[in-house]
């Protein structure tokens, strides 16, 4: 470890201080402090080191903010505080053992992480996913989307100062997590999606519980709407603040609700349907100008659409296998192990070595609650991936923050950051 580089970095960190702004603008009244016995007048920009430990940065995001009074003049995001080398770790694990690691990247949309990875592996290995598994995946993905939006809604409202919303949102989130626990055994990071399908069929009683949730959720969303959407202070805080048009958003690579809020109805579920999304009838909410209000309204409207998708998937849930019957990919059912020598061998090979995937490179993208979640996978023919890279939407979307919030008030910066909905686990990976 070179000491010079380190010290230079330390010096740079310590040098963050007040910087002169130059001559103050002439007061319109023609008076200056000097007339009143005041001393030498100077204006300075205030550099504020917001984070990594800050209540509103949604994790360990650090923003180097330059302020002129209350107005933000410059924002520099500094990331990497929770970088855990997940992509590197994945290179040292068998294909099916990568899933739990990848799920821990964007910790609010774990089903999406595993889904992106599974679709990439399935594409290389040319695995057909049974219809029932596709529907089960859709149900869980959309539940996850609602859950992620609920956490976003609660924390954003908290950042705006509406403290009660947080608990209301977490009430419904609990219901979703209970459902996850029922089907997958875990509340978070479930490892439910497997290459070729899902880990297990849904247990008895799951659909009833899901139905109860689906019935209650639109009403709850109505309540959130009533609490926030018709609150004058919320509207004043959000309307017209920090807009960015679709063209600029596209240049920054921003996708998901942020892009849709600017009027571009780009949604991979519609544009390039995967996992039977073309079976379902749903709409894509879009905004108009892409300000904070649109971002807020689009996400709220998406909750209704997700509920609609879940309802259809639940009613049309086909019978059949829940995971591919390809024994080179998925474990054989337990009962076969006692009777079939071949099943035993497959089981042994899969558990000890893992599946072998033909060499090749694939990029597979899905629509996560935050935008395009892509997984690039390179296989060298062994049982471990040679390279896994996840294009995390939070990581890409964060670049647009400076453009959005420069020139606005510091409170709007916080609101914009909340509406951006970054998840630092996904950004830093």
């Amino acid at each position, binding site marked *: 470890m070179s000491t010079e580089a380190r010290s230079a970095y330390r010096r740079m960190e310590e040098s963050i201080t007040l910087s002169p702004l130059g001559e103050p603008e002439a007061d319109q009244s023609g008076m200056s402090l000097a007339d009143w016995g005041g001393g030498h007048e100077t204006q300075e920009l*205030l550099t*504020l*080191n917001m984070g990594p430990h*800050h*209540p*509103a940065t949604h994790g360990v995001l650090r923003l180097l903010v330059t*302020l002129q009074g*209350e107005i933000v003049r410059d924002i520099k995001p500094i990331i990497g505080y929770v970088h855990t080398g997940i992509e590197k770790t994945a290179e040292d694990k068998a294909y099916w053992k990568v899933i739990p690691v990848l799920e821990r990247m964007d910790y609010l949309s774990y089903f999406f992480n595993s889904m992106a990875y599974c679709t990439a592996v399935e594409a290389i290995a040319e695995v057909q996913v049974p219809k029932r598994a596709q529907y089960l995946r859709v149900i869980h993905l959309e539940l996850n989307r609602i859950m992620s939006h609920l956490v976003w809604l609660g924390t954003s*409202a*908290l*950042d*705006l*100062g*509406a*403290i*009660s919303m*947080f*608990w*209301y949102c977490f*009430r419904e989130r609990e219901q979703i997590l209970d459902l996850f626990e029922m089907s997958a055994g875990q509340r978070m990071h479930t490892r439910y999606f497997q290459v070729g399908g899902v880990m297990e069929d849904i247990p008895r009683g799951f659909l009833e519980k899901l139905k109860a949730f689906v019935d209650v959720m639109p009403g709850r969303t109505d309540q959130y709407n009533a609490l*926030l959407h018709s*609150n004058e*202070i*919320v509207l*004043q*805080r959000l309307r017209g603040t920090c807009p960015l048009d679709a063209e600029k958003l596209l240049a920054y690579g921003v996708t998901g609700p942020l892009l849709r809020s600017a009027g571009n109805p780009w949604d991979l579920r519609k544009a390039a349907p995967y996992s039977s999304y073309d079976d379902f009838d749903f709409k894509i909410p879009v905004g108009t100008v892409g300000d904070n209000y649109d971002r807020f309204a689009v996400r709220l409207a998406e909750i209704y659409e997700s509920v609609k998708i879940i309802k259809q998937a639940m009613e049309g849930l086909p019978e059949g296998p829940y995971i591919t019957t390809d024994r080179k990919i998925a474990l054989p059912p337990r009962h076969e192990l006692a009777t079939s020598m071949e099943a035993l061998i497959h089981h042994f090979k899969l558990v000890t070595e893992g599946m072998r995937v033909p060499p090749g490179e694939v990029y597979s993208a899905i629509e996560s609650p935050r935008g395009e979640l892509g997984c690039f996978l390179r296989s060298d023919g062994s049982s471990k991936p040679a390279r896994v890279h996840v294009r995390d939407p939070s990581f890409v979307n964060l670049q647009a923050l400076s453009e959005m919030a420069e020139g606005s*008030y*510091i*409170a*709007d910066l*916080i609101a914009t950051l909340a509406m951006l909905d970054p998840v630092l686990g996904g950004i830093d990976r």
Partner: protein
Amino acid sequence: MALPLAEVGYYEEWWVQILKGIVIFAVALQLVPIVLIAERKLLGRFQGRYGPNRVGPYGMLQPLADIVKLLTKEQFRPTTSAGLLFALAPGISIVTAVAAFAIIPFGDVQHIGGERVGLYGIDVSIGPLYLFAFGAIAFYGIMLGGWASGSKYSFLGAMRAAAQLISYEVSQGLALVGVIFTAQTLSLTGIVHAQGGMWYIVPQFVGFLIFLTASFAETNRAPFDLTEADAELVGGYNTEFGGGRFASYYFAEYLNVLVVSGIVTTVFLGGWLLPFGVHPPGWVDPIVVLVKMGLVTFFFIWVRATLPRLRYDQLMSFGWKVLLPLATLNALVTAVIVVVSHK
């Protein structure tokens, strides 16, 4: 003796005054933990949870545990802070809050043990002015605390406090002018007596709304808690404070809520008077006042659970462009009506 600064309505014996001071100070000290637990319990209920329920019966001893915890903590101070002011600032806040509490009348003059005792700290003839004087000093507690911390968040919080408190103090004062015109006295007991026919919330409803709104800003409570603004400024002026000093700020904040509730009760809600010509014995008066104060405090807590925070520029433009003209207009109209009706 030099000229008295203000005329005081009624003098008791010196020992009665000391006794009264102790009693009122004790009441104020006891009310703060009650408001604390009430707020946490109520917020819990508003938010679909229980609130504190572990310490003591129904969690009632939670404030005690909080205070003990805070007071036994290290008196931490950042290296960049200005030592004396940093220590002094919470004291200013708490002293001004307690001082303002002294003028809230809990009842009329009573005969207790052969002595005539006014159920209030003092009844100055400049009641509201006294209140605003201490409110103006209270601002130094926040301002100096934020500045002396030597932290940027605190600094921003202090700057906001300076702008916010000064702006809203004007509207708050003007809102009371209407009442003073109507009652034609500055003494708070006098104002209560003047409400015998009708509480001022009815004729001075606009003034009531303005005063209440401005009071939210004066006490730094949601939706005007920009000086703390935990989402933006971490903790605003009290970011760097911990332990006993933080407890002092906390105490002062809730005491300020109580003071404002007391003033609203006195000025607009008829103080110790009851409607429909009910005249209970004198010992009921403090209970009536406390119940009314409780209702106003409940409203404060309710608003905190409901409303989000305003932005800095919205706060300022609301104060200067809406509240102040409205308050001025209210005072003007009241003045005209008073003059016309007295002819």
